[in-house]
């Protein structure tokens, strides 16, 4: 059933107009991803503003193509100059660049391309065939569950994006939630914290804030720190050897599944997915000693994981309206801008949309494979463009992208302010992702907490008694206390006690 609908959706998208859009947006995405400092989130945020006037399906396919292209494109600079083009490709540097130093840069690019495509294919499978089932579960979500889900999203995102100091991740998330409170509230339409500024009465515009955090912050950081790029290595044969792919099939499937699941966790993103996939691949490898010295397995795992995460991150966007990663957060904001209403009701109101988005994702992945294996030597020359030339152009594009949506100069001001706030926060190791996730989920948290209480006349019991709520509360507690020393000691004690009890039971049975 799903396969037929997916095939039909792909067929419907095979028009010259859409195909042209897919190819140029994927190409642009590869370039954006390839250039250090330009991220997938920034690329999507900029394109959202620029394609705002376009027809919805064309605009969304462009954004998805940009997303897929940028996450893949970052592997180019990771392999060639040892600088990840996007944070998602940090794990690619570990084995990609050593391969390039061994004179196998082209081969590494070929493996990264095919692995990314396989990762996308695995994600497509989950998107098209599992999303409708998840949508059925999402229908059971009421205000209580949505409240816990948003809280869990912000906390887990803070936990995973600030591994050294989760407190900073959580603080960033709660700051984002608070900033989302600016403007009219969703229940009584009462203006909050706008202090008579008319431009603030509708709340902080999402896209200018995102462009500021990801685009302007990068402009400031690159200018202040005057980053230099490494020496680029030569590219020869790009097509990968079939044996390298076939011998890695288990690794590809495992990394793809990990990527999808990490992607589905709210706000976590591709960088975590690639590292987790890499870690699992190293543990499962027969040659773990080769990891870090140009291991094909390591490179395959990292690239499969991050591109599978793209599809995984879109799944909760569709069924819960909760983004799985920062670029998916912008994609969600773009869907709202184009009058699409992803969320639990999508499965009832527009179930075909799941297949349409899956088809868009498939076309973007196919374009990525074709473009990724061709014109490599030409495209990588873009890496020679100096940052000092690129960044002012990005600044102008940030201003255009912020202005384009509402035609308000005030939005450029928001972008600049977020850029100014974003730089010191980044220097003090406050992660961007929870701040942005908080900003996006803030309204959902506010509305659902208050609506749940209003419907039950202030009774908080349903928040703690419904099964899905209980599961989410369990996850939240685990997120909060997983790094606590006493919690770990307690868990270790529990594990020892359980093992001892099991041994005791098996011993007594043997005696019997």
């Amino acid at each position, binding site marked *: 059933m799903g396969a037929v609908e997916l095939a039909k959706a792909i067929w419907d998208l095979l028009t010259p107009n859409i195909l042209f859009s897919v190819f140029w947006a994927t190409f642009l995405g590869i370039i954006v991803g390839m250039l250090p400092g330009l991220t997938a989130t920034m690329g999507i945020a900029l394109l959202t*503003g*620029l*394609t*705002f*006037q376009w027809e919805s399906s064309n605009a969304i396919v462009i954004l998805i193509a940009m997303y897929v292209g940028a996450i893949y494109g970052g592997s180019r600079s990771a392999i060639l100059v040892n600088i990840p083009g996007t944070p998602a490709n940090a794990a690619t540097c570990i084995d990609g660049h050593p391969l390039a130093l061994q004179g196998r840069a082209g081969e590494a690019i070929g493996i990264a391309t095919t692995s990314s495509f396989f990762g996308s294919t695995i994600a497509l499978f989950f998107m098209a065939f599992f999303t409708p089932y998840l949508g059925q579960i999402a229908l059971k979500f009421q205000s209580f569950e949505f409240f816990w889900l948003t809280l869990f999203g912000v906390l887990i995102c803070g936990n995973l994006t600030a591994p*050294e*100091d989760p*407190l*900073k991740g*959580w*603080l960033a998330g*709660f*700051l984002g*939630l*608070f900033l989302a*409170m600016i403007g009219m*509230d969703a*229940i*009584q339409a*009462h203006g*909050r*914290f706008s202090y008579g500024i008319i431009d603030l009465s509708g709340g902080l515009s999402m896209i200018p804030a995102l462009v500021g955090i990801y685009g*302007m912050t990068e*402009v*400031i950081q690159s*200018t*202040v*720190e*005057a980053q230099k790029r490494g020496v680029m290595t030569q590219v020869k044969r790009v097509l990968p050897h079939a044996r390298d792919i076939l011998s890695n099939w288990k690794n590809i499937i495992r990394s793809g599944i990990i990527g999808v699941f990490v992607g589905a966790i709210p706000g976590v993103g591709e960088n975590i997915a690639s590292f987790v996939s890499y870690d699992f691949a190293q543990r499962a490898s027969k040659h773990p000693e080769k990891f870090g010295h140009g291991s094909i397995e390591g490179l395959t795992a990292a690239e499969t994981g991050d591109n599978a995460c793209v599809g995984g991150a879109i799944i909760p966007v569709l069924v819960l309206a909760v983004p799985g990663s920062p670029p998916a957060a912008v994609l969600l904001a773009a869907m709202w801008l184009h009058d699409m209403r992803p969320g639990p009701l999508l499965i009832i109101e527009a179930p075909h949309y799941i297949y349409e988005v899956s088809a868009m994702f498939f076309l973007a992945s196919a374009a990525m494979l074709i473009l990724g294996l061709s014109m490599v030597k030409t495209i990588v020359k873009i890496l020679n463009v*100096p940052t*000092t*030339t690129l*960044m*002012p*152009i990005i*600044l*102008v*594009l940030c*201003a*255009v992208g912020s*202005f*384009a949506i509402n*035609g308000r*100069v005030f939005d*450029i*001001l928001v972008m*600049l302010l977020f*850029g*100014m706030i974003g730089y010191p926060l980044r220097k*003090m*190791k406050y992660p961007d992702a929870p701040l942005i996730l908080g900003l996006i989920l803030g309204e959902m*948290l*506010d509305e659902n*907490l*208050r609506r749940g*209480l*209003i419907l039950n*006349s*202030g009774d908080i019991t349903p928040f703690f008694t419904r099964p899905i709520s209980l599961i989410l509360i369990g996850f939240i507690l685990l997120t909060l206390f997983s790094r606590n020393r006493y919690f770990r000691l307690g868990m270790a004690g529990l594990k020892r006690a359980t093992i001892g009890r099991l041994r005791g039971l098996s011993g007594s049975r043997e005696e019997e």
Partner: protein
Amino acid sequence: MEETGKPKKRPGMPRADFIMGLILMVFGLLAVQESLRLPTYEKDWGGFYAAPGFVPLILGLVIFGMSLAMFIRAVRSGGARGVIPSREAFQAFLRSKPVHRWCLAMLYAWGFFFILGRVYFYLAAFLVLFAFMATFSRQKIYFSLLISIVSSGGIYLIFTKIFLVPLP
């Protein structure tokens, strides 16, 4: 068993955490105060839980609590020492290249913002591009001039003719 001998490394950057903890604590308290000033609509909606300030109040309290925890941690790690820099350290900070670069980048970015709408967009874009490249780039000045002209003209044409986007 815990490792002995080595003191346990505390996460964070003590001095920055000390300052940021203070700032966020003030922010949290202000958020609480402002939330309490919002109307409660208790008669119409049943209780304070329906008030527009209810969630911001909770968020303000959580931000205050977390920043207090960070502040205490920073104090324990010696973050309070040397928060007020010596005159020499302050002068060295003012003389450092990153600070100069930051000030110039801000000057150009805000300058661009303030001239937008007052001059033609492509002229404003050309000015900011040229100023940035002439200051921070190592390439020849005429090359920066050429790139600035081509880029500003290109951005103007692409966005007005292809993307049909209104420009400031």
